[in-house]
């Protein structure tokens, strides 16, 4: 074992955005269980820390109708993760579950059940989307003001942790002779009185084999980062370039001391795409093909409409950008996807300049250029080298890989890149433990304190 910083890998099941290429003849079912089995077992063969599932609780809409150009539909996160636990033995099982449209007692029970039944492999990505559009599917409705979303997230997390850790570690004795199943009067009553929730009662489960599920956070605002620094074991970031990654890494890790946490207590994992070829040229060629498949002519127009805020269906995707300016009132043209508010007029200006500078890009070429760059492209060795550099230079602690194909999108990476990473001494050659906390090098959590790294 070298002293080199080790890379953590997770695998994102390709989902409902245009990264996932459904038009490829190799593309399989997005919902058949066989696709999940193939994908998860490949990740486990590659000794990944965990599998990751995103979530969106309302089908996205574009110009008032269900967005039909990307993959639509997915199974229920918790249910499919429990099933995947049956066909894997070490792989962590990470699920995205919303903090606004769930109640803490129910969520605590469901996540603890996954964690018990998988032998301590569960992770929860807490997301805070709280829009009224999604709320129309729920009793709660869309009741949260945006600035309250992390208040609720913090409170739901505090409450679930209280429940998860409410039993003493050694509470279950199951002493047949004396007739004592749980010592000291059983499960203690947990009482939570807060702004968002008020509940009381006993929890029906003791701490899990890893204490409680690993906590992942993926919000990017200041409040989101602060929430992550205070509570998360891992951060799913969208800062994929070396410079942006390093800046985010410094920012996030710099927030940790405030909460008495060390740099090593939080693993930062950016969303990462890749294309592999036998030669660098072949990889570049494949990457260009993938980008074209990700941005169909219709998808190019839809992206443009998101910025322009108006109907552009009459424009030719292979023609130039529209002369007309974005409609600043038209920003709500797409619903149900995470938006990062921007000045659309400025974006349009920037895009026109870029199209011009590149020798007159068409609409489709421009969208490919601005949205579909892969993180790593090259031979297996080159990809391994680039990834290693990112991690060693503190742009991240590892990656959440987002392949473009279901179910085989991870196959080549595991067969060809993982051995290169191992040769570089930056990646494990076997699982040394069975829980996800072990894979991430995290200590067992104790009541009250946020998670900390294992000693030594």
């Amino acid at each position, binding site marked *: 074992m070298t002293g080199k910083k080790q890379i953590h890998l997770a695998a994102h099941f390709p989902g409902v955005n245009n990264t996932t290429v*459904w038009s490829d003849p190799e593309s399989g079912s997005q919902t058949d269980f066989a696709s999940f089995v193939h994908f998860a077992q490949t990740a486990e063969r590659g000794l990944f820390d965990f599998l990751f599932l995103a979530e969106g609780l309302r089908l996205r809409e574009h110009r008032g109708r269900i967005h039909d150009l990307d993959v639509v539909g997915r199974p229920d996160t918790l249910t499919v993760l429990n099933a995947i636990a049956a066909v894997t033995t070490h792989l962590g099982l990470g699920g995205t579950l919303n903090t606004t449209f769930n109640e803490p*007692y129910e969520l605590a029970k469901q996540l603890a059940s996954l964690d018990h039944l998988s032998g301590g492999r569960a992770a929860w990505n807490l997301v805070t989307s709280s829009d009224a559009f999604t709320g129309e599917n729920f009793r709660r409705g869309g009741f949260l003001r945006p600035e309250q979303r992390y208040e609720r997230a913090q409170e739901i997390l505090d409450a679930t942790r209280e429940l998860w850790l409410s039993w003493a570690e050694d509470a279950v004795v199951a002493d047949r002779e004396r007739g004592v199943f749980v010592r000291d009067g059983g499960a203690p009553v947990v009482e939570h009185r807060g702004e968002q929730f008020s*509940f009381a009662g006993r929890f029906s489960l003791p701490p899990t084999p890893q204490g409680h599920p690993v906590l992942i956070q993926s919000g990017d605002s200041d409040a989101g980062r602060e929430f992550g620094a205070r509570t998360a074991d891992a951060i799913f970031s969208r800062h994929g370039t070396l410079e942006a990654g390093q800046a985010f890494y410094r920012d996030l890790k710099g927030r940790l001391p405030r909460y008495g946490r060390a740099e090593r207590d939080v693993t930062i994992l950016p969303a990462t795409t890749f294309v592999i070829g036998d030669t660098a040229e072949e990889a570049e060629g494949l990457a260009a093909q993938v980008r074209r498949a990700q941005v169909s002519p219709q998808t190019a127009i839809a992206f443009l409409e998101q910025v322009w805020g108006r109907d552009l269906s009459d424009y030719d995707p292979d023609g130039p950008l529209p002369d007309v300016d974005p409609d600043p009132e038209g920003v709500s043209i797409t619903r149900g996807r995470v938006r990062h508010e921007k000045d659309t007029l400025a974006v349009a200006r920037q895009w026109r300049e870029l199209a011009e500078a590149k020798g007159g890009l068409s609409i489709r070429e421009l969208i490919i250029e601005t949205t579909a760059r892969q993180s790593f492209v090259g031979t297996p060795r080159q990809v391994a080298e680039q990834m290693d550099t990112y991690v060693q230079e503190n742009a991240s602690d590892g990656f959440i890989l987002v392949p473009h194909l279901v179910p085989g999108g991870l196959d080549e990476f595991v067969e060809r890149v993982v051995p290169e990473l191992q040769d570089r001494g930056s990646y494990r050659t076997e699982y040394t433990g069975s829980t996800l906390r072990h894979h991430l090098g995290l200590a067992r959590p104790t009541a009250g304190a946020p998670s900390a790294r294992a000693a030594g």
Partner: protein
Amino acid sequence: MGRGTYLAVEVSGAGRHPAAWRRPDAHPEALLTAPYHVGLAELAARSGADFVAVPDSFAPPGDDPDLVPLRLDAVAIAARVAPVVTGVGLVPSVTVTHTEPFHTSKAIATLDIVSAGRAGWEPVVSRTPAEAELFGRKPAAPPEELWREAADAVEVVVRLWDSWEDDAVIRDVATGRYVDRDKLHYIDFTGDFFSVKGPSITPRSPQAHPLVVLRGDEPEALPVAGRWADVVRVAAADLAAAHSARQRVRAAVAAAGRDPDDVAVLLDVEVLLGADAGSARRELDALDAHHELAASSLRVVHTADALVDMIAEAVASGAADGVTVVPLVLPGGLRMIADDVTPRLVDRGLRPPVAPGTTLRDRFGLPRPANHFTGANA
């Protein structure tokens, strides 16, 4: 109606009896582990049962040290065993009083996906102030209100299952469209308790409508069972009472405009079997000495032959269409069903063999349903 005598088994913890965990053949230390639940499901599959009922509730554990206060999420257990135990239906209970029908709908549809068409669910209500307190959103409600809300919840769950037509995914490269959005439907449900827009985020599942199992004991529950149930569970102290219970269910089904022969009524039977009646009795006495359990339905504490006779009589006399065996002790109680009871039922021609790959609806003679919304956008 399907065929013959239906057989379901209910599996929970160390068995229905609160002292069951103290028996030498119990596994109290393993109750939260996957191998324990896989083992129980394998026994259920080996017994040829139509489905395993996995009970659940939010009733918080008490503080009696000799009771087992553990409760895993039932859908989680069913999903965990689904890929590795085939040939048996999986019917977890899901409470509908404090939970979101949108989440429940996609969870059960997904159980159907991962089990290749063997999913069902038993909607249950949360009655007590203690359960209401765990959510802190509304007080406990009387049965009439609980079951009215449950009816709305079941309706939303089922409508969401139909909110995707089977052929909604088209992958049409020429037009760049992955789905045909005319085949995705808003359910636009509005009721006294909640409103849900839809569509589901999960496509239509192999069975389209996983089996709906409801209890038909309370008068307030009967209209819900009559309208929505594929299978109804009842409790009764004896076969005469079971006969009346079945007639009440059939009347409720007819009142909802459905054919009573489409809905199987299963009688709960608490079971503890022995080599002879005396030894079975002594086993129960030993358990009751620790912690007494009053019977919640007809009970057979006797031999395998006695149980088989009782089941045959129940079905022949029209008291039930089959039974849900509730073992007082696990896993031993289930092993005896597989080893001693099922072979006798088969010998008597009460349990014809089931082809591999059969869906749970198939087992109950239920066709894959047409889609409520088909043609709605045309």
